[in-house]
């Protein structure tokens, strides 16, 4: 599983959305029905899975699936399962 696939599988599980909704540009709040608490939980799950700490002031930059992937890549996270 690639990192993108892992991120998408977490999003599908946490937000109860279908695979085809999870396009790179999909916004968590506008397209995937997340509220502020869902976002917190989602970020916690990302931190746990990819062993990173995402500071609260970095959260504002993370609005879409693409943002998550870019953030993780920027942190040098390498993932394969």
């Amino acid at each position, binding site marked *: 599983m690639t990192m993108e696939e892992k991120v998408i599988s977490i999003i599908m599980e*946490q*937000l*109860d959305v279908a695979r085809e909704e999870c396009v790179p540009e999909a916004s968590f709040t506008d397209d995937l029905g997340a509220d502020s*608490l*869902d976002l*917190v*939980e989602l970020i*916690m799950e990302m931190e746990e899975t990819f062993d990173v700490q995402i500071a609260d002031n970095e959260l504002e930059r993370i609005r879409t699936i693409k943002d998550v992937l870019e953030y993780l890549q920027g942190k040098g996270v390498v993932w394969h399962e």
Partner: protein
Amino acid sequence: MKNRVVITGMGAVTPLGNSVAETWAGVCAGKSGIGPITKFDTTLFETKIAGELKGLDPLQYVNRKELRRVDEFILYAIAASEMAMADAGPVLGAGNGERLGVIIGSAIGGLATIEKEKEAVLAGGPRKMSPFTIPAALANLAAGHVSIRTGAKGPIGCPVAACASGTCGIGDAFRLVSEGYADAMIAGGVDAAVTPMSVAGFNAMRTISKRNDEPEKASRPFDRQRDGFVISEGCGVMVLESLAHALARGARIYGELVGYGNTSDAFHMAAPPDGHEGAQRCMRAALQNAGMDAAEIDYINAHGTSTVMNDAFETEAIKAVFGEHSRTLAVSSTKSMTGHLLGAAGGIEAILCVQAIAEGILPPTTNLEHPDPECDLDYVPLHARKREIRTAMSNTFGFGGVNAVLIFKKFEG
């Protein structure tokens, strides 16, 4: 002038079944909902039995995302309320949510969530706590979720009154409809406290049964061999409606709620005073509220927990209030079958009173095999009995000395 208040919908999830119909059928057949605890490992626990729900499919009521946001007590309230509202039919026209309210009491709220999240924090630090912890644990969120889902924008509340919570919920809602603050109320009680802390806590108080080898016989109210209550989980909710409103929309009417009493012992945090004086005053208050004489009550659904103390004290209080009539009226404890649903007990037992009146069947007290000489009323032992019932009283008493009593009546236009 006060509004008459009728019951137009009912919903329940109990250890006897995931609907009112299944629960009532279980009660009439004298079935037990008690079994070994499956929710956690009971190896180290003195009590290993409880009344758990069986086979409830959460996804029938919430989606997977919602499921993660709610404690089971909230899920049970959503399920029972949805059933009650479907049963009642279209209570309000579109855009009139302000005339519909919700009061669902709970003794302990999201205890399971608190326990689970505490473990997460101890293991991984405070940042490991789910952002849904607080909204899943707050007791009033059962009513909150039901309000969101039904669009009820009127009065909302959550009496936290230990084992009287459900009765207080229905009683408070009764007063609101009676006084005209709402046309209809979704009202009842809920708890989902088959958890390690709850079982250990009640064990520490020496209040729950340890009859682990015979779970179905563990809840035995008024029996000489009773050794405490059995913790159960579930929810009971009814739709209360002003008579005028129910008639105007042609609703089916199950029965009428005519009286509510609510008193405090002002005595002790867990023990009743001599003669269960607070309970006596409460039954009298409900009768007075209903404008009825004691002799008019046909059936009492007792608090009847199966603790040594409650059953003898409640019997004494009933005798004091009803005098000679206590020899002719029927008293039973459906907790012998359902176990003690804590804050949901009043919700379920109110429903069973309404069913008893509507069906003309006295629910039994099962497991009453060795009558206690101190408990000498007609408890409808072992088997249900057919009898015309015009009026039924539901008793619930909780820790803290809270007493709550409702009186239901056959509906006559």
